């Protein structure tokens, strides 16, 4: 074991800043409302579409089929609604001197870290619903492909702008260092 330690010395993590110790900042509470509204809208659209489809095609004429569809709809709606309500509590971001951390997921937890010196560019996006609530999404793009990019939804536009300014400045200063 000792021989192993010699070729592969352990780095005492205590001296490193630890990701597990950061305190996350919450997103704007209005983001929860947006999630609920969009989820409800989506399921209402699905329900209307199914009803119209049934009206013209009569495909669910058999009671049992129609019943199954309704049950699936109700189950789906409750799960997604629960997710819309609760997911807000599990989301958060933390800004550190050299990187940004974003966590999300109720059941499947995910923490993504993007160091500023790997950010290619950052962007602020605002959809129509976002605009109505005065919120925005901040996206950071790295060279690691689309799945590695970090998007923070539900930020107040002002905060998003400030973050973008801060990060852009960081990217610039990192470049100068090199």
């Amino acid at each position, binding site marked *: 074991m000792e021989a192993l330690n010699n070729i592969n010395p352990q780095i005492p*993590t205590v001296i*490193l800043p630890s*990701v597990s110790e950061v305190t996350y900042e919450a997103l704007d509470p209005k983001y929860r409302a947006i999630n609920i509204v969009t989820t409800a809208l989506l399921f209402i659209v699905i329900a209307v579409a199914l009803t119209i489809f049934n009206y013209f095609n009569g495909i669910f004429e058999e009671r049992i089929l129609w019943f199954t569809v309704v049950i699936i709809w109700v189950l789906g709606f409750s799960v997604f609604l629960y997710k819309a309500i609760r997911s807000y509590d599990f989301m958060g971001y933390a800004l550190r001197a050299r990187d940004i951390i974003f966590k999300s997921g109720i059941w499947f937890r995910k923490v993504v870290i993007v160091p500023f010196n*790997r950010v290619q560019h950052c962007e602020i996006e605002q959809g129509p619903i976002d605009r109505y609530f005065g919120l925005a999404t901040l996206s950071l793009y790295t*060279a*690691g*492909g689309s799945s*590695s990019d970090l998007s923070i939804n539900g930020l107040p536009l002002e905060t998003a702008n400030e973050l973008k300014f801060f990060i852009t400045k960081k990217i610039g200063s990192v470049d100068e260092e*090199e």
Partner: protein
Amino acid sequence: MKKSSDFDFSIPQRQSHIAILLILLKRGKVILQQLLPILVVIWLGGKQGGLYFVIAFCIFAALTLVYAIINFFRTNFYVTDDEIILNTGVFNRKKLSIRLDKVQTVNFEQTIIHRIFDVYRINIDTAGSSKDEFVFQALDIDKAKAIQALVMQKRGTIKASDYGIEQASSELYNQDESIDSSTKEVSILKLSPTQLLKVGLTENHIHSFGVIIAFFIYWYQNLKDVGIDVDEYSQELDYQSFMENFILVSFIFIIIIAILISVIRSVIKYYDLQFLRSAGGFKIISGLITKREVAAQDTKIQYITWSQNLLQKYVNFFELTLSQASSSEVSSKQTIAIPGLTAANISVIASSLFGQTAFADEDKTHCVDPAYFRRFTQIIIGILLIATIFAFYFQLLDQLLIFVLVIGFLVLNRYLKYRNLGYSFDGERLKIFGGAFGKKYALLPIYKIQSIAFTNSPYQQRLSLCSLTIYTAAGALHLPYISEQIGKNILDTFIDKVETDHRKWM
């Protein structure tokens, strides 16, 4: 051979005249593909249509020729102090320029026509979003070599003046940039015909097998579309006695064909393969019909993997892939595979790239949690139970048997994967061990990491486990089912390294 100084690239240069022929063929192929349905209709129109067919074909051929000639005379290129400029376009003038310091590599390619006339197709690869193709269809060999030398040399001087003093202090930059790239080339591998045959015979035949099956399905569909009912034909045959022999014979037949396809494909792809170490990069030359010369710069290579399947283990060959950063999305085009290497070859490559010799299973310091296997098995057995109930309900016992066999294979595969999976890391590099029936290794310098994602599912949360996804500019690497404590440790260590190491990832 003429030297680069014999050409004055500051004045606009044209391509070789062979380019006319090549453009003609290229355009002709594209237009022919688009016109094919119309041509078929005219052809089917009977004798009257025959004449129109010939006329249409002549007009089309003449137009394409005119296009190719205009294209040739309107295409030229020249090199300024810091840019290479390509003027092109038949109807709309287009001027493409690339800054020389953005040039990653200059790649050569020779199709059969290029080889007849001894010319090269040149492809200039950039770091930017390479939507615009920067390609010269045909250049004479002297000119091609000269432009490559000039571009790489100018690129070197620009970069050197950019970095200045820093270059002297950092050994890595020294190695990468300062030496004239066209001078030193050391051969790592030259594949002899016997080795080439071995490479072909030890390929992953399951891949070829899949190709054949896909081919059959494609033709089956096509014949049906044309109106030939394949099912009907097969039903006319004496079904019982036919099927008994048919399955066995066709199985052996397909295996032989699969091996044959693998060998032919390897020969076409890797004929006369040469793998060279040039200053600051690698050079791969190979191909039977189309001869390609591809260069990979050290700076662009993000990580390397090498693998060995069961057959390759028998002849002790490894296949190496150099995973390069790609500007847009990660594509297979950016990954270069070199077969037929020995462990010693891999060591030479890995140590010259990342300062680490090839490693074997003994170096594995961390394994993945048994839950990696256990969880998969639990889920798949659950699926099997549901399938069994369905199978009994609908009387599909034959299908169930096949399903059980498939699941058995998947569980075995997962178990072997679990046994092989592992990793080890130091302050500089991450080594990943993997493979199911064969072996697979990956080596990644930590400073090339782009970002890291830490995930844990509800099941993993209960067992204090997590999975890490490590993103690089050449794709992602996974560390599944590792202890949460170690996962966090790795996360902190790696991120700290990325943030404090000032070497450029590309």
